């Protein structure tokens, strides 16, 4: 009896302390004038291999901006960073939290999370930018922007490159598509559907695979029977590795050209499949490689090696570092155009200012050479439209092509889009 009474008293005191201290915590918050942005990455969950270095890059870049550039327009950038565990519902609550916290815009890494949260953001007019995107995010364009070319653009960039540099035969080359059963795959499928004829290629097979696939022997056997010239894979590293290994085992490769979309074309693909098997495989990627001689490389390398050395060499890190630079530029433009007081509100008025005076004023912004120039074109929410084609040689991703521009496709004008 005595212990229960003690328990009750202790519980009561604890509750009273919590109630008394909570407002004080709020009162202790720093009163410094900052520009607040939100970032949500899949740092845990099934996409942590990509989300974790991307989150690191976002935070490292904010540290760089504040420490060495004096913030944006003299105001430090404050980042609210949340994990979304690659889960749609958590992504939605994360974006609501970013809005509650008064963030001026938000950035995400993946198209899956952005597609889950985009309606929440669009309804509130809360602008967002995603590194990796599928066409559904901005067709029709609303308040979501793509930092880089989307999965459809990947496919077209590779097809263009192939037609100009590799294809020597008569007639149309025969393309077989192996697509992940989600927007990463459907983006490529839709792009070929819209532009395949115009590019002069023939799609002879479209196969799907799951992200957890462990064998694609049967689908590749069907493809092999059709004698393709090209196998284009739009997927993530592990399934892509399975497909290429199976193609190798079936004797299809070498012998045909294999092209990969950027979601899979990282060091992880070589590590999983084995360097000898993926030798000669082509892939698209929208950024430069580590060690290239571009202005932003030195600082990015310095911060990465000091703060997260294990991420060095990971191309996804470059993507998110560049994303943060783009977000800083948007803040700078909006600050110049509407002033701090409008942005300080952190409400729908600030979000509109960020979008119309920040995002939509981007013109030829150079991200230190890390990827193509960043420009907003009315009606096209892709902020960068340039890809490069790389090749795996001696276990390294190398031989970058020139920047290849991806054409704008107005998907919403096609009856089949979203069907």
């Amino acid at each position: 009896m005595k212990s229960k009474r003690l328990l009750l008293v202790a519980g009561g005191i604890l509750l009273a302390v919590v109630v008394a201290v909570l407002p004080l915590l709020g009162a202790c918050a720093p009163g410094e004038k900052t520009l607040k942005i939100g970032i949500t990455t899949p740092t845990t969950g099934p996409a942590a291999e990509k989300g974790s270095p991307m989150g690191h890059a976002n935070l490292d870049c904010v540290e760089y901006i504040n420490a060495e550039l004096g913030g944006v327009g003299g105001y430090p950038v404050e980042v609210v960073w949340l994990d979304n565990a690659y889960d749609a519902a958590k992504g939605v609550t994360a974006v609501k939290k970013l809005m509650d916290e008064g963030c001026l815009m938000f950035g995400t890494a993946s198209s899956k999370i952005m597609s889950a949260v985009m309606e929440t953001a669009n309804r509130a007019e809360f602008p967002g930018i995603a590194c990796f995107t599928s066409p559904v995010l901005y067709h029709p364009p609303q308040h979501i922007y793509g930092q880089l070319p989307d999965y459809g653009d990947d496919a077209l960039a590779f097809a263009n490159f192939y037609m100009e540099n590799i294809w020597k035969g008569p007639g149309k080359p025969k393309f077989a598509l192996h697509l992940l059963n989600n927007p990463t795959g459907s983006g490529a499928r839709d792009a070929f559907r819209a532009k395949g004829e115009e590019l002069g290629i023939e799609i002879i097979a479209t196969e799907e695979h799951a992200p957890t696939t462990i064998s694609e022997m049967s689908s590749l056997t069907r493809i092999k029977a059709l004698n393709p010239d090209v196998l284009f894979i739009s997927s993530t590293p592990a399934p892509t590795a399975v497909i290429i290994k199976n193609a190798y085992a079936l004797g299809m490769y070498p012998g045909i050209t294999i092209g990969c979309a950027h979601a899979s074309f990282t060091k992880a693909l070589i590590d999983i499949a084995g360097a000898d098997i993926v030798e000669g495989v082509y892939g698209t990627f929208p950024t430069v490689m580590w060690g290239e001689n571009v202005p932003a490389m030195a600082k990015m390398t310095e911060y990465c090696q000091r703060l997260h050395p294990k991420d060095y060499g990971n191309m996804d890190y470059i993507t998110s570092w560049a994303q943060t630079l783009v977000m800083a530029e948007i803040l700078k433009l909006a600050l110049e155009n509407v002033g701090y007081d409008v942005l300080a509100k952190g409400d729908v008025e600030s979000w509109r200012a960020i979008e119309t005076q920040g995002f939509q004023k981007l013109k030829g912004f150079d991200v230190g050479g890390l990827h193509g120039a960043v420009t907003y074109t009315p009606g096209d929410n892709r902020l960068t439209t340039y890809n490069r084609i790389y090749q795996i040689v001696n276990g390294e991703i190398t031989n970058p092509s020139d920047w290849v521009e991806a054409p704008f496709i107005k998907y919403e004008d096609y009856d089949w889009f979203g069907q």
Partner: protein
Amino acid sequence: MSLPTGTRDFTYAEDMAIIRTKTQWALFTGFLIFLFTTPLYLGNYWLGVANLIGITIIAATGLNILVGYCGQLSIGHAGFIAVGAYTAAILTNRLELPFLVGLICAGLTAGAIGLIFGIPSVRVKGFYLAITTIAAQFIIIWVINHWQVTGGFVGIKVPYASIGGFVFRTEASQFYLIMTIVVLCIFFAKNLARTKVGRAFIAIRDNDLAAQVMGINLFRYKLLAFFIGCFLAGIAGSLLAHWIGFLNAEQFSLTESILYIGMIIIGGLGTTLGPILGVTFLRLLQQVLTMEVVPFLESTVALPAGFASGVTPMLFGLVIILFLILEPRGLAHRWTLFKSSYRLWPFSY
């Protein structure tokens, strides 16, 4: 509900009442007042979490009727939620039908699909039934991805819920809508367990052969359990669709289905309170780990690379293991023990 000493029933109505004493009425009324005034003191983020919890409670209540009361293991619940979500999306977006029509049809469609996948339950049970429900999960998701009407891989937009011209735009208004339906669903589930149907479910769960000998039609009642369980999943799916505003099939993974099983185990199988406690506990745990613990560890503590990304699944697994070892009857049982203990306090035995 057990009663304090000296409380007696004088009418059949009193005997059948769920809430029996003035104290219970006061507590219940106080809880409802607290629940429906929550938007006054919570921000959009926590209201969003509360809405997600409410939607999950409806789905978990359905699963609890199926698994907890009737003993029919289903590992395809997220698939049935997807059926409801897409039905609501198609009816309200493509056909522009009212929200309430979409809501009811979502429940009925999910229930009907549940009936189809419930048919094997007459012949198989346990792990074998689990496999057939996993098949349901994969078949449903495949159909969603490849059927033109659903938007395929691209997904489909869902408008705000609206009733009689009132549009539920804000998080607070959605909270009232969702919580009202949650209360109705829990009231339904509580009463169902006290009816002939509920008792038949329990008899089937405890020993289906004995239940059949007693005259319970196994085919009918097992299918009824599938229908009711999936109906509630469909209702939850409809609310989820209108809350998120955009659907694609990736939101309804097998992992989600397994999570639902975890929720009702932690809450307490075969009790009305179980899904409420299990869902609240696990959803809050998820939010705290994902939104607070991982960012804190990543930004402040020098941990080995990749450690923070493993914290959530590790803690999550640990909690489920601890519950299975220390409290296999779930949080609802712990709550019952707590109430029993304090009912007699300070004059314990």
